[in-house]
């Protein structure tokens, strides 16, 4: 604050409160919808105060599949989402650390070629090459498998570049000291490089977990068996019920459950999250 202008400060607070309210409004309505039965959500207007059906809805959503949309119980979809998110996150971090380590700490023929090949992946989001990628995955018999969900999404130029930057800042002398201490390259990676990069790894973990959990198009394509549905795409299946009326209490409860893991991660690890976002854009 450069000078005192009480009315401006008041305006600032008012605007922020309004912003928070608008941003939060959809969640409020979702939470309300979670507490009502299907009948209440067919009235106009729908109730804006909580009802008493929360446990029923949760029970129904978590443990009972939907015949109308063909989705399995949500606990299973949550597990699938978790497996996919963790798989993508860990996979990306591991292969990025390995390749960044090779590029920084070794000189070898074709090093720059590999570097540029990784760079290209930055330019090819899955959305623009879906059809051929789908065919590759189908050709490898990876449809309806965790491998098929995870593997095509784990190459990451951003993470590789980030780790390259981080490794560059580790003093050369540490590597020399480690060599004299008798460490092999792999030992040096495990004992020195990785522990020294742990904040960056944690920050990246937060960002990538969200990225992985929120995948939508890819699971939509590679899972045709409902046992492999993830929760984010499951919601789409529930919305898509043709001419019959959507089961809003079920949909909104699922929606809420689908939001919980990534939102909790962001709020609980706010510092790491912000660091991760800013790191990833460098």
């Amino acid at each position, binding site marked *: *604050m*450069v000078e005192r*202008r009480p009315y401006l400060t008041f305006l*600032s*607070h008012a605007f922020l409160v309004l*912003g*928070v309210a608008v*941003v939060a409004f*959809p*969640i409020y*309505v979702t939470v309300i*919808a979670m507490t009502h039965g299907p009948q209440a959500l067919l009235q*106009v*207007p729908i109730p804006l105060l909580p009802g008493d059906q929360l446990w029923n809805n949760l029970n129904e959503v978590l443990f009972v599949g939907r015949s109308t949309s063909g989705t399995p119980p949500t606990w299973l979809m949550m597990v699938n989402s978790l497996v996919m998110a963790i798989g993508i996150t860990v996979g990306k971090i591991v*292969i990025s650390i*390995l*390749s960044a380590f090779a*590029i920084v*700490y070794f000189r*070898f023929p074709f*090093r720059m070629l*590999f570097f540029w*090949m*990784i760079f*290209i*992946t*930055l*330019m090819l*989001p899955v*959305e*623009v*090459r879906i*059809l*051929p*990628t*789908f065919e*590759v995955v189908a050709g490898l018999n990876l449809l309806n498998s965790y491998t098929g969900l995870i*593997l095509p999404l784990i*190459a990451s130029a951003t993470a*590789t570049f980030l780790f390259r930057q981080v490794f*560059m800042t580790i003093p*050369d002398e540490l590597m*020399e000291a480690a060599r004299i201490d008798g460490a092999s*390259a792999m030992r*040096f990676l495990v004992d020195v490089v990785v522990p020294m990069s742990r904040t960056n790894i944690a920050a990246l973990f937060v960002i990538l977990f969200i990225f992985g*959990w*929120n995948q*939508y*198009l890819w699971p939509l394509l590679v899972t045709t068996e409902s046992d492999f549905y993830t929760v*984010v*795409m499951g*919601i*789409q299946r529930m919305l898509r019920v043709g001419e019959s009326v959507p089961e809003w209490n079920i949909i909104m409860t699922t929606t809420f459950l689908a939001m919980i893991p*990534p939102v909790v991660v*962001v*709020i609980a690890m*706010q510092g790491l999250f*912000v660091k991760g*976002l*800013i790191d990833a854009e460098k």
Partner: protein
Amino acid sequence: MEKRVYFRARLFPYLLVAPQIIVTLVFFIWPAAQALKLSVMRENPFGGNTRFVGMQNFERLFNDPIYLDSFQTTILFSVATTFSGLIIALLLALAADRIIKGATGYRTFLIWPYAVAPAVAGALWVFLFDPTIGIITYAMALFGYDWNHKLNGNEAMTLVVIAATWKQISYNFLFFVAGLQAIPRSLLEAAAIDGAGPLRRFWTVTFPLLSPTTFFLLVVNVVYAFFDTFGIIDAVTKGGPAGATNILVYKVYSDGFVGLDLGGSAAQSVILMAIVIGLTVVQFRFIERKVSY
């Protein structure tokens, strides 16, 4: 910047890059090459044989009013999403920058939509604007406005823009706040002593100094609107009504998987890749030069 010394090994570094390179080759380079190849081929709808057709698929696309419409729709959608997202986030960031106490609290309540999947964001807003039971639809009806995004293309576009903006505000807000904090207080104080009021200070000091952040966000938001909003479109409108929200990324998907027009879809992929590459180049040139003072 390079390391002074290296580990000596012949095979080991190849082993280290192998996983990344294999995944890249199999799932990125190969499919991209396939897309390039398919974009100049046409499949016979009655038999399995394909033949080389040169640039015909592209010509067909650029003579196809539906594709040109989709292009227009995409531009309209990106411009609307980018600008509303940037302006709202900037206003919130300015407000948060002005107050010192409680700014972190507001931040917590503003950043979480980033964590919500686009498709989930779509579901949230669809529920609010549902033509029959949506609470906002109901509120608008009280004012005599009859909302139905399932029939009205403009309303459908408005709804996807709202959902896309809502999700992107957090990101823009965080970067604007960081950008504002990087502006030296002394400059603003000097301007205040020179007699510049808050509005004048904003336009003459804050806004120019914020331009690197703004430009960066501009590119990121365009990329977001072009490619990351697939889930929102699919959950809210499925590209409808009558193609009113059929943005390019959605069209690639629906032509390829629903319409099974492989050559056409591949040509569209190639065009999209060209757009991403163009945007990435812009972004990189910017990062190298860092538009700044």
